[in-house]
């Protein structure tokens, strides 16, 4: 598996290939904790937030919300304690960048969280890691112990009046806990159901206190923003999305891996065919899901020979989005009906059950997919899927419903032949009527 930067100097991946890169010693020998020192040496919290705003850093978890603005929403005069929570619940299918950041460079996350905590006035902070990543929790705990022993964590950090603690916390297997309010409920010891917004976590988050929830990749960008200045960081990317972005590349490419690209990397086709060394076995590209399973699928015809820019605006213009950067490449052997069925089963399993459109809707979607898969597909089943999706999208309590809808909408639109093939030979379904309880439409 490849790990490294293409088209720019490695920034977030600067240390990942060094020996013993997870140790405090290596981190400090390579520029680590310099940003924290600079912050504590004379930057005010507002200065820090100002730099992050200038950097045009957008949340790397999937939604792409401007990080500086999110930090700015935290009320300064609140008498309540404030919290920074790191979202390390990485569970979007196709995404594995945070895993390598934490495995190879845990101190970068510690430093990013310390700076965020300083900017927001937070004393106790949590890293919410998905339960399956237990070995990363162990790595983070070791890094936190090292930092504490070196006076970088706890009371009077680096001899200043800044006091701050960071704790690891384990999830236990629930995709929905990557949604920030579900994560907060889970961290409070409840089922991972999303909360109504507003109030947003910045005002009433963990234990009802002002809270900022940021993805690992977002927080690990902060030390570099402080060191090089917000403006210089922004210039690495585009005007609206600064810096570099990690792409988790998987599927039918010769060289899967974690790729760091500047925001606005010019050419998706080149990225697949050259940087990722092309499609395995010399087969042809069929489709790409560029931003984790929850974004629109892109057919090869929208990529090959087209100039698709890899940033928020470029991918929206090309009919998809950056999402979490989980870049899944599929060759001509993949049946998009089957890949979409697979993802729909995922969303059914991961629907938290809180709201009806998502809980019932994803279940009905899987039922229709299974009927079509079993040879009982009816001529209007694709339309039936779209009708069900129409009753989920925008009508669910949290974005999981949308995430379940978009792959289906785009798959049916872009690959109708893969769905048409599932209509039974007699054109009428072979299950002999309505015994599965589905409407006969």
């Amino acid at each position, binding site marked *: 598996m490849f790990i490294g930067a293409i088209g720019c100097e490695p920034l977030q991946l600067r240390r990942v290939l060094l020996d013993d890169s997870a140790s405090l010693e290596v981190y400090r020998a390579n520029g680590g904790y310099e940003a924290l020192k600079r912050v504590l040496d004379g930057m005010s919290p507002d200065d820090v937030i100002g730099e992050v705003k200038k950097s045009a850093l957008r949340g790397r978890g999937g939604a792409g919300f401007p990080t500086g603005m999110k930090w700015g929403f935290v009320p300064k005069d609140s008498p309540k304690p404030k919290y920074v929570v790191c979202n390390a619940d990485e569970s979007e299918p196709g995404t594995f960048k945070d895993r390598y950041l934490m495995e190879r460079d845990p101190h970068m996350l510690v430093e990013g969280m310390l700076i965020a905590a300083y900017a927001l006035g937070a004393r*106790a902070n949590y890293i919410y890691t998905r339960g399956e990543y237990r070995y990363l929790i162990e790595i983070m705990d070791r890094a936190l112990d090292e930092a504490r022993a070196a006076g970088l964590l706890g009371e009077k950090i680096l001899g200043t009046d800044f006091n701050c603690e960071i704790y690891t916390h384990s*999830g236990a297997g629930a995709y929905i806990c990557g949604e920030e309010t579900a994560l907060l409920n889970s961290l409070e010891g409840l089922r991972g159901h999303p909360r109504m917004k507003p109030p947003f976590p910045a005002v009433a988050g963990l*234990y009802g206190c002002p809270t900022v929830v940021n993805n690992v990749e977002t927080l690990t960008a902060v030390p570099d923003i402080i060191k090089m200045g917000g403006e210089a960081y922004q210039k690495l990317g585009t005007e609206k999305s600064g810096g570099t972005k990690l792409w988790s590349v998987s599927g039918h490419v010769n060289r899967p891996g974690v790729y760091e690209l500047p925001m606005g990397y010019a050419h998706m086709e080149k990225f697949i065919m050259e940087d990722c060394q092309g499609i395995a076995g010399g087969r042809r590209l069929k489709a790409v899901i560029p931003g984790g399973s929850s974004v629109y699928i892109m057919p090869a015809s929208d990529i090959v020979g087209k100039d698709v820019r890899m940033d928020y605006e470029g991918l929206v213009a090309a009919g998809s989005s950056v999402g979490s950067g989980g870049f899944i490449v599929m060759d001509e052997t993949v049946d998009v009906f089957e890949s979409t069925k697979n993802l729909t089963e995922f969303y059914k399993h991961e629907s938290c059950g809180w709201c009806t459109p998502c809980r019932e809707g994803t279940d009905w979607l899987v039922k229709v997919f299974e009927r079509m898969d079993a040879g009982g597909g009816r001529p209007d089943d694709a339309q039936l899927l779209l009708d069900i999706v129409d009753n989920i999208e925008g009508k669910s309590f949290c974005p999981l419903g949308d995430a379940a809808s978009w792959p289906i909408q785009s798959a049916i639109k872009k690959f109708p032949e893969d769905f048409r093939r599932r209509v039974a030979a007699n054109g009428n379904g072979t299950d002999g009527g309505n015994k599965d309880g589905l409407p006969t439409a």
Partner: protein
Amino acid sequence: MFQQFTPNNPLPQGAKVPVEMAVFSPEVEAEIDRHLAKYPVKRSAILPLMFIVQRERGGWLDPPGVAYLADRLGVRITDIWEVATFYSMINTEPVGRYHLQVCKTLSCKILGANRVTEQCTKRLGIKPGETTEDGLFSLSEVECLGSCGTAPMMQIGFDYYENLTGEKVDEIIDRCKSGELSNGVR
């Protein structure tokens, strides 16, 4: 013995809570205290504590373990069940000593997750969702574990096994049978 209360066999209305409560060693109690010290609210430690109780009680949250958690966290038995039944990594039924969890989501799927599951089934004689009669193996198909760049993969306990092939699966199962491989529970 007391009646086993599980999600499929819930506590009847008005029934008394089982009094038997799990007892743990001073080391485990100290580990639990370290987790509780992280949070201003005890209940926040529910998931970390569940993993500990599960580890100590033979791989699952048995009723004495649940009673212990409710007591330790100052919540009701139903609060513990409410949370336990939500999260896929909390076992509310017994599982085998080696819990083979094969990722079945898209990236693994298109790179041969089915072959991994089939090989496990062939070697162990169990389908996903089942446990061998000797209680040594359980097999599950699970959703994306963040190992897409090294697909296909499976997790045993907390340990990752990546870039799997049929031979590698055979070797892993052999090493589990000989007891050479850790079951990854910690």
